[in-house]
């Protein structure tokens, strides 16, 4: 509601920042006060904006008495804290950031209070955790602050996640996320099988936020935050969000045994535990933090009792606690600010030198101790009164006794705080002569102190209606009869209270001895345990993750293969993959021979795998058999392609092989090879069987029937494969040449910088261990290629032109062109050939793609879809009839890209070693300096040089 982004005014003065923030809080408060009258008289104000209707998440706010109480608390203390912060923060601190976080928090907090949609409440809930994280970590240079912030976020954020689950389940059980609806459906929820889960999850959320045992430990460490934050978030407001939540959901969740036992027990334990620890802490803020834990336990316990009176007590205590604890935090802040220490053992006798501060501190501590005539006394009495009536699992005395002990401990640490700090010998910490601070620091706690006092003296006037209305809102019934007063007569609570104070004083008398014995007790440090647990698990996870994600291609592939095998195996195992009934084709002896050649060659590739050259030779054999197979099996286009691609591939591999290290030693162990062999065998058998299963199934009439029937009439060609490529499925082909073009570009991008830097140095230093013949360009070969070039180009032209009707086409023709030119490179060398080429690969690729796309776009001009072809049989005198098809233009684009990409790959690769060798040392240094961050001008010039050559 009131989130103002102070970032906008980042550069403005701190006064402006404080002004904005204070105005914000005050404005919110004003709105509340305006609404207060109607709300208390029973008219709930609501606002509803649709947000995510499908989810049932609306921005719906309401202002009922409980919301009013909470929001008022948040805004009013917020206002005071802003003022206090103005005095507290140093001149150089970034107030804008601080206050924007604070305002973010305040807004979120008010949001929690006002939400009438549980999902919306979750949003605000998690936001408070986030804001708390930022605020605790505000002094980011301090390790304590960072760790405290992370711990707080971890615990409260984690609890928040449980709360999310709980709330969504609650919504599911109640059939709505609207709070009012949910609250009205307690029977539905409590009857639901999900109720225990809902309860536990929500309680975890509430308990973590409210620092209930055993989730309490983050709170003391949150004290690393600046004191205004501690006062505001970690005593007065945020930690009470859990209590608020319990109160808010009280009608729908409370009243069951589950609720009573869990909530009461946790609250009681926390109350006792917090109080006990607080007594033996020496850091002022730590004392206050544990005290807060204890007090929160008190409130939780009261809510757990499940009675209206207990709720009223809790709510009244919320008010009291907010007043005195915020005041105490501010007081502790002042002491820290003035004396430079928060160690209670280094402080004493401050009453004499800081009278105002001391008065304030004593007053607030008395309220915390539950001494009359302060508000704290009343709420403590109410608590004791309620516990006196509570029987825990048949144990009537358990709760009252423990509650009294807790009250006693509270009184003890409160008195210790008041007495040890302000009276006795003068100890002033790090500063020689501390004094009372200015009004900005003093006024806010003073106001709170006065309120704490007033709540004791005039409880009914000040808080009566509010507490009553809020209690009614919580219990969902009418406003209970409420009598807030210092004196209730001689009831058990009074005796319990008196006894507690008396023992407390006695305990303080014996304090040194007790403290010494407590100090000897092992004190598990929650923070260390938390840190260690986290660090250990992070380390373990990191090691695990490292093992899992080791950079190992071999592993990536093994997992991929095994997964695929497992999946295919599952299907085959469950449903069976039987062979079909289609008659097989008898194999001719020559087919068997070719097959044998393929099998043998494959085995040979494996057998000689580390003698790569030989492996390549055998790969050639496989390629040859493949081509023969395609011929035999009626696929001449494939055969042509296979033959041409094979040659280019071999050239490419030989070029690369030259620069790779020589025959390497075997890398993998026997076990590894056995494992891989097993995977390979399974993969082979599996894929072979799949092929077999499909091939033996009768074919079905499919879409290719259409292709066959329309090839000539609709596509203008008799080679159905080619018509498919350039017409029916031209879009595939467009994608395919794009792939090739990109491959070319990437290859260029890879090889162009290879002459520089590390790679360039390695290339220059590279010497083969083999002895080579000195003859570079064998005469016979050179001469033959000169004759072959025009011949091969002619053949290429032929294959290109007839592709539409006979085997051939742009791709194969392009490969023939490429091979013709590559032959020149092979025979006459790079430089000789390169200067004779007229067109760069980049141009070819670019033009090819453009021509192909433009051909496709051409049809748009005629109102036909992209890539619609058109053809006509043209009659020319003399020449006769011939066919012109746009598909041929498309094929031209294909051819250009293919030539470009192939030449790019091979010519660049052939070029790289030489270019590195030619680099002069001066350029080497330049390249070494920065191999990754090449400036563009140098690239540009290198590029230009290349362009001029070509």
């Amino acid at each position: 509601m009131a989130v103002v982004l102070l970032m906008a005014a980042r550069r403005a003065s701190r006064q402006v920042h404080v002004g904005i923030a204070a105005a914000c809080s005050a404005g919110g408060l004003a709105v509340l006060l305006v609404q207060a009258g109607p709300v208390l008289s029973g008219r709930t104000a609501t606002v509803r904006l649709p947000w995510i209707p499908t989810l049932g998440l609306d921005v719906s706010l309401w202002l009922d008495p409980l919301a009013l109480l909470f929001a008022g608390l948040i805004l009013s203390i917020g206002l005071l804290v802003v003022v206090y912060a103005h005095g507290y923060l140093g001149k150089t601190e970034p107030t804008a950031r601080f206050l924007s976080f604070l305002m973010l928090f305040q807004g979120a907090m008010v949001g929690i209070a006002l939400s009438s949609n549980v999902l919306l409440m979750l949003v605000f809930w998690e936001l408070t955790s986030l804001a708390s994280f930022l605020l605790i970590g505000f002094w980011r240079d301090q390790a304590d602050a960072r760790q405290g912030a992370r711990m707080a976020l971890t615990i409260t954020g984690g609890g928040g996640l449980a709360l999310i689950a709980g709330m969504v389940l609650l919504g599911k059980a109640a059939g709505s996320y609207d709070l009012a609806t949910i609250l009205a459906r307690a029977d539905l929820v409590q009857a639901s099988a999900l109720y225990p889960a809902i309860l536990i999850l929500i309680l975890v959320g509430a308990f973590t936020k409210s620092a209930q045992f055993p989730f309490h430990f983050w709170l003391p460490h949150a004290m690393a935050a600046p004191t205004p934050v501690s006062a505001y978030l970690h005593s007065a407001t945020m930690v009470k969000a859990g209590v608020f939540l319990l109160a808010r959901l009280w009608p729908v969740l409370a009243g069951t045994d589950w609720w009573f036992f869990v909530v009461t027990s946790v609250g009681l334990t926390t109350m006792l535990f917090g109080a006990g620890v607080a007594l033996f802490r020496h850091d002022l803020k730590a004392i206050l933090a544990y005290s807060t834990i204890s007090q929160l336990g008190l409130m939780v316990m009261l809510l757990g009792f499940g009675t209206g009176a207990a709720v009223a007590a809790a709510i009244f205590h919320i008010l009291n606690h907010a007043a005195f604890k915020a005041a105490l935090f501010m007081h502790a802040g002042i002491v820290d600010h003035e004396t430079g220490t928060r160690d209670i053992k280094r402080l004493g006798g401050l009453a004499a030198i800081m009278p105002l501060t001391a008065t304030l501190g004593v007053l607030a501590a008395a309220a915390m101790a539950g001494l009359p005539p302060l508000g704290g006394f009343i709420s403590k009495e109410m608590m004791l009164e309620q516990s006196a009536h509570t029987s825990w699992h048949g144990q009537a005395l358990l709760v009252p006794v423990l509650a009294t002990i807790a009250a006693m401990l509270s009184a003890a640490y409160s008195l210790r705080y008041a007495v040890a700090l302000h009276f006795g010998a003068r100890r002033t910490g790090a500063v020689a002569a501390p004094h009372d601070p200015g009004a900005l620091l003093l006024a806010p706690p003073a106001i709170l102190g006065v309120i704490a006092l007033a709540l004791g003296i005039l409880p009914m006037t000040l808080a009566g209606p509010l507490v009553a209305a809020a209690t009614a809102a919580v219990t969902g019934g009418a406003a209970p009869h409420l009598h807030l007063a210092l004196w209730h007569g001689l009831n058990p609570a009074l005796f319990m209270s008196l006894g507690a104070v008396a023992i407390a004083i006695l305990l303080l008398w014996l304090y040194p001895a007790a403290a010494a014995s407590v100090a000897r007790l092992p004190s598990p440090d929650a923070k260390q345990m938390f840190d260690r647990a986290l660090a250990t698990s992070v380390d373990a996870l990191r090691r695990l993750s490292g093992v899992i994600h080791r950079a190992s291609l071999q592993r990536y592939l093994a997992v991929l293969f095994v997964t695929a095998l497992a999946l295919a195996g599952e299907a085959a195992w469950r449903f069976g993959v039987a062979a079909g009934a289609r008659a097989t084709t008898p194999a001719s002896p020559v087919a068997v021979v070719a097959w044998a050649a393929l099998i043998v060659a494959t085995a040979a590739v494996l057998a000689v795998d580390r003698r790569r050259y030989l492996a390549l030779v055998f790969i050639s054999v496989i390629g040859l058999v493949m081509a023969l197979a395609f011929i035999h099996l009626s696929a001449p286009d494939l055969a042509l392609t296979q033959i041409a691609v094979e040659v280019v591939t071999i050239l490419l591999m030989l070029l690369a092989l030259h620069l790779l290290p020589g025959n390497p030693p075997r890398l993998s162990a026997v076990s590894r090879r056995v494992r891989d062999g097993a995977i390979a065998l399974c993969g082979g058998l599996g894929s072979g069987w799949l092929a077999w299963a499909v091939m033996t199934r009768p074919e079905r009439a499919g879409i290719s029937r259409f292709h066959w029937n329309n090839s000539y009439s609709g596509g203008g060609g008799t080679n159905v494969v080619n018509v498919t490529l350039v017409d029916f499925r031209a879009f595939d082909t467009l994608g395919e040449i794009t792939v090739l073009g990109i491959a070319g570009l990437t290859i260029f991008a890879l090889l162009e910088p290879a002459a520089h830097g590390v790679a360039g140095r390695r290339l220059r230093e590279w010497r083969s261990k083999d002895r080579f013949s000195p003859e570079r360009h064998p005469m016979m070969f050179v001469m033959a290629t000169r004759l072959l070039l025009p011949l091969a180009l002619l053949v290429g032209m032929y294959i290109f032109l007839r592709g539409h009707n006979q085997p051939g086409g742009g791709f194969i023709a392009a490969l023939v062109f490429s091979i013709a030119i590559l032959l020149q490179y092979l025979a006459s060398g790079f430089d000789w050939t390169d200067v004779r080429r007229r067109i760069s690969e980049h141009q070819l690729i670019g033009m090819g793609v453009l021509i192909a796309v433009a051909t496709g776009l051409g049809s748009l001009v005629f109102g036909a879809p992209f890539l619609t072809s058109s053809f006509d049989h043209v009659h020319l005198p003399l020449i006769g009839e011939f066919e012109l098809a746009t598909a041929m233009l498309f094929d031209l684009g294909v051819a250009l890209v293919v030539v470009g990409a192939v030449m790019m790959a091979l010519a660049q690769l052939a070029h790289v070693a030489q270019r590195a060798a030619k680099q002069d040392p001066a350029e080497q240094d330049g390249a070494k300096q920065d191999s990754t961050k090449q400036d563009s001008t140098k690239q540009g010039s290198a590029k230009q040089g290349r362009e001029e050559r070509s």
Partner: protein
Amino acid sequence: MTLVADIIVIVLLLLGAGFALIGSWGLVRLPTTMERLHGPTKATTLGLGALLVASVVHAQARLGVWTAHELLISLFLFITAPISANMIAKVHLHRARVGTVDEPEGIAGPPPRPSGDGDWATFEAPRRDTPASTANS
């Protein structure tokens, strides 16, 4: 006419396949690399040539069309086969000279030096401005 053509085809087919087979057999049974080189460069060229002519005649006899383009295959082979043989011989010479274990010298022994002071191009860079060098062009 058909009978004559058939007989021609049959003879050519047998001749062609026979020479191809003999060439490959030579590759298996001849003693060393240089000798083996003779098999393919000769037997297979004619073998293939005979098959191609058979194909021409066959097409004429069966389909009644004159297709001569098979001869182009022969043209290419006549251009390329000697080059292949030449390069393979160079590989052999080079490896034998370097002393590679698996490249034994043939029964002709090491090649004699050419007259004069030079060596073969495989062992000595071709001299500039001689026909053996193509660098000058």
